[in-house]
């Protein structure tokens, strides 16, 4: 017995050393891989980039400076210009809000059909999950470009693209929320003979609705950015205006649009944080 203890301790020591070595080794390996990726990526970028890196850095402030100089020269006449672009901003916001709402509804349907605690049929779950994966993974831009090509210029392609993407992205989060909700209320309702729809309405929905809304608000914020970008490739709104202004080189107006955009996004950022805090009491 007295001899066993030191032997044991030795064993522990050896194990500890082995473990530490292993950890160091895998850390070093990870760092090496990261460095390799970094250098490889830099080589690719240097090869593919049109201008050189050094000149790019040197030119970084040129464009913003030009914009500000242009704006400064206008003086007080500037503010009416900012106001002039507000209708365009509203179009962008409208696209985002509308497609988020429709996507939200579609996502709920997706989520119900892909939650293991609501649907017993494995095939249905797999199919819905696959559908969500695909709709979520396509960049909105690709869907929007195809529809722009097929339907001609309007805001509709942006609406369709954002709706599709939102349905997939929210659907995944909603599924997790439903699968993680408490099973006892469902059991309780089953025990009094509630139908499937009643179970969803009275046990699942009250549990997950705050979470759903919180995710939806977060998505709305993202979608405002998305709809601006889609406008940039031709789907209307402030993005399209911005693209045109940049092409015409109207520095002051470009800056006006940028100010409007940044202001909106920051305001939305704070608003959504506030709302979500109110809804679920946490800043997730």
């Amino acid at each position, binding site marked *: 017995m007295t001899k066993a203890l030191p032997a044991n301790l030795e064993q522990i020591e050896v194990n500890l050393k082995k473990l530490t070595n292993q950890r160091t080794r895998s850390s070093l390996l990870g760092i090496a891989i990261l460095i390799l990726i970094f250098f490889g990526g830099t080589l690719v*970028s240097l090869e593919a980039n049109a201008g050189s890196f050094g000149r790019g850095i040197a030119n970084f402030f040129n464009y913003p400076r030009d914009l500000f100089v242009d704006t400064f020269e206008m003086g007080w006449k500037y503010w009416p210009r900012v106001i002039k672009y507000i209708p365009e901003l509203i179009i962008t916001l409208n696209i985002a809000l509308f497609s988020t709402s429709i996507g939200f509804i579609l996502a709920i349907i997706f989520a119900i059909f892909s939650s293991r605690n609501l649907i017993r049929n494995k095939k249905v779950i797999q199919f819905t999950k696959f559908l969500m994966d695909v709709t979520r993974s396509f960049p909105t831009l690709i869907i929007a470009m195809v529809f722009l090509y*097929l339907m001609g210029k309007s805001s509709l392609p942006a609406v369709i693209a954002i709706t599709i993407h939102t349905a997939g992205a929210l659907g995944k989060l909603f599924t997790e929320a439903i699968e993680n909700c408490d099973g006892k209320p469902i059991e309780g309702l089953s025990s009094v003979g509630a139908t499937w729809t009643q179970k969803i309405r009275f046990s699942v929905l009250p549990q997950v609705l705050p979470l759903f809304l919180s995710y939806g608000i977060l998505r709305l914020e993202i979608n405002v950015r998305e709809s601006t970008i889609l406008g940039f490739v031709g789907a209307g709104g402030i993005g399209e205006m911005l693209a045109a202004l940049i092409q015409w080189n109207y520095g002051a107006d470009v800056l006006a649009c940028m100010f409007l955009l940044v202001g909106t996004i920051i305001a939305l950022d704070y608003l959504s944080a506030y709302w979500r805090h109110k809804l679920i009491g946490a800043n997730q």
Partner: protein
Amino acid sequence: MSSSLAIQRENIRKLFPDTFKQARKSRLRGQIIFFLVLVYLIVGFFTLDVVDIPKKWKPQNAAMFVLDTYAHKDHVTMKWENHEDIKIAFEGNYRSVYGRDNLDKSIPDWFYKNSDNVGNVVEFNNKGKAILYKDKVEIVNFPKYERDFTIKLNSNGKPYLVGSEDLVIEDLKGFRITENRVEFRPTLYERIQVYPKKVEIHRYSIGWKYFWFDFSSPLEPYTFFEALGLTFSKERVVPEMSNLKLFLTEIKDNEAFMHGRVWWAMLETIVMAVLGTMFATVMALPLSFLAAYNVTPIKALRFTLRRLFDTLRGIDFLIWSLIFLRAFGPGPFTGIFAIGFTDTGTLGKLYSEAIENTEKKQQEGVQSTGASKFLQHRFGIIPQILPIFVSQSLYYLESNTRGAVIIGAMGAGGIGLQFLGALATGNDFENVAYMAILVLAVVIFMDRLSAWLRRILIGSDQLIVR
């Protein structure tokens, strides 16, 4: 029974009047919100012209687009003035003509001399035939058509359908006849057009032909696996280079699908996403420590950094990429920095919140051993937040891949720009489909990769928030 239930219900109502009032109030609020949302949806329906979808939607265009994404076509052209000179070209491209001597490309087997030894037959996949003669085109053997048709030129040199006045409308479906053209298109896969000057036939087949090796490639006669097998053989297909090298260059320089260029563009996009995320992580790491109240006692510094994060995030990556596009020109650096700057804001905010939410006890434990401030943070905070950091960064990797495609389309290059280019040509829709599938595959791969890395690094593939 029911009356006693009603009495009981009344009693409960009397016992808890406040609860019932509250329930009614909250139900009313829900109904009002629901009503407002409904009103908004209706307004949005009209302001965004959703009602116009049926008007704007051109089924013909969409059908052609979809058809071209999964099928290819061969053009057969005959000029009336010289009916023996028949040109068969893949997708109507003048560089992919069958039967040209210099290419040593045999005539496909669906084109042959008719049994009367006069006409030339184009046989479609549905066994229908178009027979080209010196002075007429015969359309025979089409399934679902009871009779055959003949198209001739009249004395004015205009095409007409022989005996069309005897035909019932049922027989004429699939025909479109105008003054200068008679078109027969029974399904999307067969199309025969007769003009005053020429006859043009489009014969569609399903699949991406010449996906691996293009029309003029010496490896074209072989399938992919046959060609792969050839790389192990000593006999050279062309004398100039080894089979393996030929195999690789032929795939890379494929003119139809441009594998070399597409894959390089895809690599550019991935590099933008990965290096952008790395850049953001490296920038956000120290800044987030300085922005957390349990590490930095200086309030002014914390406030400044917080606003810096907000600004970086608020200037959306659209605007960042516009600025960087001017500075760096088209290329991955634009994407890297646009993603990096935006995400420095996002990750900085998330990281600093994570640091502020760490347990204080561990730090106190380290402090009790007399460790310096630096060591306290190293051993008291970092072990707690490292999984969160890794999880967040990997989570953003996937969405940044999608972002990189978008930045590319706005001018930074990469697969986004290639995609726009293919779409703009208006007829390379198989390339559009190919790139869309490629992007989809890469995004899903990145998603799985980041989930897998999260699982092996921190034992959970869910996004850890706190």
